[in-house]
């Protein structure tokens, strides 16, 4: 049995069901992100795990023990909030020591643990400062140290980075992941930023409307989205309308081009989807789907150049690597693009 087991979790506020039939198993030491648009119920799931919200139905077990009946202060959970929530009347060291004091840890052990935690977050000398004397990034690191000091079973982070500016966000998320790996602590990380979720998680739960649409590794979520929502929410997606002309062999017609996908398809109209990096300039071996397109916009992103092109009625984004010896096409150029059928996802129409 998994370390943290959530089964058939439901939550309604009045008549609105904000979390529906939510299942999730997390192994010990795993880092799982809840990713989804605003209002999809991420925070509500997290708060039910922490015990701040009572589920309407369903089960939550931590380390084999049912915790539904336990109050938040009995669940042994570390929580980090978007707004830091440091205690303004206590110094950094006192903040970190708070949970240890509540647990009546002897003073000398406590001081040692506080030192250890401040070293862990890389702020060994700021113990005597008050929260208002710290930057946002520093405050959030202290909040992390405070949550980890009590050695919780599970660490819950609710959009811990969204109040910070972009540069700090990226460095702090790497630091959070590093600390999480070092302590091997089971973690749920809530975010609505897909790049954040994909870059630091072992697994990602994509939520929509209170439902877990897909649970998988970042690789699976990105490359094999299970639903149309996941495909569109995570990353950029090209959508290509196609008519199935031979369902058994999966032959489709796109504009005037016909190509076989080599797998059975439903009859009628389908929507095919592919990532920008699956579309290449020019014809190539193994890419039988060839389309003529007119380049619309050229965005130079550094290592990657993103091209916007129009192929008939289909708008395409494609990424090419920047090579100093190969200048990208210019807007207005007519080019041939190719796609491998294996890279095409079929979305139910």
């Amino acid at each position: 049995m998994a370390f943290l087991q959530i089964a058939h979790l439901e939550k309604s506020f009045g008549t609105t069901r904000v979390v529906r039939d939510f299942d999730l198993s997390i192994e010990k030491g795993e880092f799982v992100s809840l990713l989804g648009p605003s209002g999809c119920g991420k925070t509500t799931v997290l708060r039910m795990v922490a015990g701040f919200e009572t589920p309407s139905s369903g089960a939550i077990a931590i380390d084999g023990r049912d915790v539904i009946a336990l109050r938040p202060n009995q669940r042994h959970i570390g929580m980090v909030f978007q707004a830091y929530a440091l205690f303004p009347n206590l110094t950094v060291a006192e903040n970190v020591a708070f949970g240890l004091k509540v647990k009546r840890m002897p003073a000398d052990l406590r001081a040692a643990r506080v030192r250890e935690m401040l070293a862990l977050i890389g702020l060994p000398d700021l113990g005597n400062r008050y929260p208002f004397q710290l930057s946002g990034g520093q405050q959030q690191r202290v909040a992390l140290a405070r949550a980890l000091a009590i050695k919780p079973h599970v660490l819950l982070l609710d959009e811990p980075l969204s109040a910070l500016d972009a540069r700090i966000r990226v460095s702090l998320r790497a630091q959070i992941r590093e600390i999480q790996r070092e302590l091997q602590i089971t973690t749920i990380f809530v975010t609505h930023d897909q790049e954040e979720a994909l870059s630091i998680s072992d697994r990602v739960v994509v939520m929509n409307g209170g439902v877990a649409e897909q649970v998988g590794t970042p690789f699976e979520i990105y490359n094999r989205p299970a639903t149309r929502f996941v495909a569109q929410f995570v990353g950029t997606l090209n959508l290509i309308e196609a008519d199935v002309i031979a369902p058994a062999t999966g032959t489709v017609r796109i504009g005037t081009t016909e190509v076989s996908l080599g797998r059975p398809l439903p009859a009628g109209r389908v929507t095919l989807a592919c990532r920008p990096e699956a579309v290449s300039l020019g014809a190539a071996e193994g890419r039988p789907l060839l389309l003529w397109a007119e380049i619309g916009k050229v965005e130079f992103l550094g290592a990657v150049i993103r091209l916007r092109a129009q192929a008939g009625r289909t708008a395409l984004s494609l990424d090419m690597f920047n090579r100093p010896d190969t200048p990208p096409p210019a807007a207005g150029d007519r080019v041939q693009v190719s796609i491998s059928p294996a890279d095409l996802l079929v979305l139910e129409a």
Partner: protein
Amino acid sequence: MGSPRFWSWAALVAGVLYFFLPLAGMFEFSLRARRGEYSLQAYANVLGDPQFRDTFLYSVVAALFTIVLGVLIVAPTAFWVRLKLPRLRPVIEFITLLPLVIPPIVIVFGYIRLYNTSSWLPLTGTAAGTNLLLVFGYATLALPYMYRAVDTGLRSIDIATLTEAAQGMGAGWFTIITRLILPNILSSLLSGAFLTFAIVIGEYVFAALLNRPAFGPYMVWMGGNKAYEPAALAVIAFGITWVCMGVIQLAARLGRHNRVQR
């Protein structure tokens, strides 16, 4: 001259004169206890009067009990209402305003009817019981000020998240209120406390009708029986109020040092 600067100065001067002339007059009068010279004789008389000391001490003690009672009632209530029952806030606010609307004389007659010697809880039968009743009454009188002060203090911190953060680390309600909420609203509590103090020290109706040896009735008695001493007493009472005000300001400034930046 029609410059706005001139008129604002004029308004300030008029205000200062309006407030300070009577005070200055009273102060001057209080110095004239000896014929033909200024002296502090009236102050010496007041301060030397054992009744002054007894009644003042009585009122100070009553004020301290009132403050403790007020904080014990108001702080957890305001905290709980803000945290769990935000929809009840207007109701609670209305209730705390009632003592401003209902005259003290009505309240105290209600008390006397409810708690007289032939009632189910004969508090007025003993001196201790009456003292208790007086403190209850004072706590009621101070309720609007205490509640407002505490509520303002609570508004300045994010109590919901702070409470959850503390709960997550294993803290129970007692720890949360004593270690987290009270310290963070300390400056508001202090200003509520000193307002309470100022109210209790000068209160007359409750103390007189419950027949307690408090400072308020003493001042009134003095006013009816002496010439210069009441003026001296009034100056002293003003002084006490002002010291309270100063301490409130100081408390507010101290509190700012550890406030969260937003």
